[in-house]
């Protein structure tokens, strides 16, 4: 007999009591659906992110940076690999179905992978801002995460994302201490990437978000977004860069005198467009990913078990 719950209230009591769900449990269908969707989205984002990193391996300046980007690519594809396994084990879609739907443009992935990285400085802005945003949001999932297999692979993913973040900070430091051309390259990249990175956290959470109730997410989108802004506005300014927000201001009175950075009201239209595959680079990204999948068919066929010769 597997573990089972009489209804959603019974299941909620289990979750609230610190319970952890495992794949063979007879989990409520809405939990299975929502958690699966969330993990599939995460897996797709890792894969699309890994392919972005890969684009820059040949163009990364110098051997050390090429090695770093090779390793990052392997990490991101590895993250996707672990997550697709966890998602497939939930029994709703096979890995092949998830991949085919992604390459057909029928699946969603993070907004930031719908934009073009124009120069090398964009790639650094991604490594600095996007990996940090991914790190913060994944760590908030890891903090509670009631689905056992997801929590176990997140442990590894979050620790690797920490390396990416530190690589990103170091690369930013190099550009910030570099020539005027390098500094202006980064400023342009920051202007392009600031809002997509902030929007990665998503619009304010629905207070009834079942993922909060079931402790997949430990914090609301707005809490994470706010914390991110508080951390990265002063950091970027300390390097002498300008945040592309005319209404940005520090309110010393905010939060009981602790003070807080307040931004302009966020326009969520660009984020919504990416969720419809209507971002500036969505089409190219998806077709590149599909082409890569087709190019690597030989690896999958080589891994098929061969009949044993008599």
């Amino acid at each position, binding site marked *: *007999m597997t573990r089972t719950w009489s209804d959603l209230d019974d299941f909620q009591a289990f979750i609230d009591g610190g319970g952890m769900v495992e794949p063979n449990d007879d989990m409520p269908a809405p939990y299975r659906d929502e958690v699966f969707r969330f993990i599939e989205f995460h897996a797709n984002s890792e894969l699309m992110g890994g392919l972005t990193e890969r684009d820059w391996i040949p163009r990364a300046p110098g051997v050390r940076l090429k090695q770093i980007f090779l390793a990052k690519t392997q*990490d991101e594809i590895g993250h996707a690999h*672990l997550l697709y*396994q966890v998602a497939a084990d939930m029994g709703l879609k096979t890995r092949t179905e998830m991949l085919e739907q992604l390459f057909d443009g029928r699946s969603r992935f993070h907004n930031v992978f719908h934009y073009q990285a124009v120069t090398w400085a964009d790639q650094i802005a991604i490594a600095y801002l996007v990996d940090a945003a991914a790190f913060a949001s994944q760590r908030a999932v890891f903090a509670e995460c009631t689905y056992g*297999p997801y929590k176990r692979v997140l442990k*590894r993913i979050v620790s690797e994302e920490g390396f990416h973040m530190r690589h990103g900070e170091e690369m930013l430091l190099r550009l910030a201490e570099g020539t005027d051309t390098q500094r202006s390259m980064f400023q342009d990249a920051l202007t392009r990437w600031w809002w997509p990175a902030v929007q990665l956290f998503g619009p304010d959470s629905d207070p009834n978000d079942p993922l909060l109730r079931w402790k997949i997410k430990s914090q609301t989108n707005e809490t994470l977004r706010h914390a991110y802004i508080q951390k990265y506005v002063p950091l970027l300014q300390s390097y002498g860069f300008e945040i592309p927000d005319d209404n940005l201001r520090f309110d010393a009175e905010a939060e009981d005198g602790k003070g807080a950075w307040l931004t302009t009201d966020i326009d969520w239209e660009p984020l919504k467009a990416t969720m419809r595959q209507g971002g500036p680079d969505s089409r190219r990204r998806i077709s590149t990913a599909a082409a890569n999948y087709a190019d690597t068919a030989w690896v999958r066929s080589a*891994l098929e*078990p*061969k009949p044993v010769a008599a």
Partner: protein
Amino acid sequence: MRTFEVFLKRPGKDEFRHVGSMQAPDPEMAQVLARDSYCRRGEGDQMWLVDRSDVVEVDQEVLATTTDLAHRTNDGSAVAARRKQLRAEGAS
């Protein structure tokens, strides 16, 4: 394809831990893929791969019988009460 459960042991006194699952055509290939998926930075110095079909999941009913056997544990409260009493008497 076969599915393997991956257990990794960090160097030192840590125990083996389940870190995830993966697919491979055979145990030989599984070793290479498991290293690439789970041990790229020396996260472990020993690894077990268990074919998922060999895992026996223990029935909830079998496990349930062990939860009401209070005589198998002892929280030490009787002895603690005695000590507390002795301390109180010594102080007065």
